[in-house]
């Protein structure tokens, strides 16, 4: 692959790297796992880049490939999550003033999300990213109606985890 292609890819990825970071935040815990998945996604994006025609935005394309990599191609087990590992993510939080009680609740929410399976995490991710149901159904390859049903189930499941 030519150098200019590589350069264009690296530049665009650099500008859009937060998409990948965000997926890593949901699918991994701890900085090492985060970096691992980030690298795997970068490799998959680079491999798929020649097929990216520019008929959609780089960011739209990248988030699909990245999400699919997290669901299908990534092999490291990230299931077991402890509170300690969440603490290590604290440095992500900007130093704004925050409500302590709210922060505790958010911590519990993240822990609940970590207990979901890969597909459910993808749904949560797309919800957090304000993707509409057409986009969700297209990304996962399921019908819109089912995407809606499943989203409601995921919310229900989260509620159950939070209030057992």
């Amino acid at each position, binding site marked *: 692959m030519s150098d200019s292609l590589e350069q264009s890819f690296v530049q665009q990825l650099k500008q859009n790297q937060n998409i990948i970071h965000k997926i890593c935040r949901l699918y991994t815990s701890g900085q090492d796992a985060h970096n691992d998945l980030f690298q795997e996604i970068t490799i998959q994006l680079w491999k798929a880049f020649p097929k990216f025609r520019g008929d959609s935005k780089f960011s739209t394309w990248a988030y699909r490939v990245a999400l699919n990599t997290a669901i299908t191609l990534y092999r490291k087990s990230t299931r077991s999550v402890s509170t300690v590992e969440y603490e290590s993510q604290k440095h992500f939080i*900007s130093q704004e003033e925050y409500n302590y009680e709210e922060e505790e609740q958010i911590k519990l*929410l993240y822990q609940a999300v970590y207990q979901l399976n890969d597909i459910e995490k993808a749904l949560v991710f797309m*919800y957090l990213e304000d993707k509409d149901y057409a986009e969700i159904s297209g990304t*996962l*390859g399921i019908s819109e109606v089912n995407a809606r*049903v499943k989203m409601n189930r995921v919310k229900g499941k989260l509620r159950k985890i939070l209030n057992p």
Partner: protein
Amino acid sequence: MEELDLLKKDWKRKENSFSQLSEAEIYGMLHRKSSSIVKWILIISILEVFLWTGIGFIYSNDDYLKSLKHEELLVYFRVLNYFNYAVVLVFIYLFYKNYVNITTTSSTKKLMKDILKTRKTVQYYVWYNLFMIVIGLISGFVVSFAYNPQMQLMKEKMAHEGKYMAITLGILTLAVIASVGIFWLFYRLLYGILLKKLLANYKELKKMDL
């Protein structure tokens, strides 16, 4: 759900809180090795093809067949061999086609289908090889019994003693079952580990779209 909205609020707030990678760091990542499942399936499949072809070369039975002085056997096994190579070539083509088909841009469900199809191909390939092991072993035994002069003594013994024949047949059957079993187990372990997570996710997606 208000909890999720709280999460969303936090999500948006932390949007730009990641330590940013430089272009140089991203360049470095591009040429590192992927650890993706599909790559491993492809590598293992290719290794398998080499393994089987290698075994075929090492245990060439041409000399043995020549020593039996039955030219027609030589032709028969040659044909079987060529047929086998043709089938292996078809499989290599299929593996490659599957690999090319897997593009990460398709929908998750389609992608998983493609990956699982790759696995199916491997599975057919393994079944074919198991079948060929059985055919090979059985025809080997038959040829030995029918044409090898050294087996004459054994044949006479077997004709006279039913127990001896039963034991011989039993050992041969066990040998076939053991070789098939060992390979099958090895295969199950290898792909089972690789595809455990993928299968779980695929089932989850399928459940969603019933």
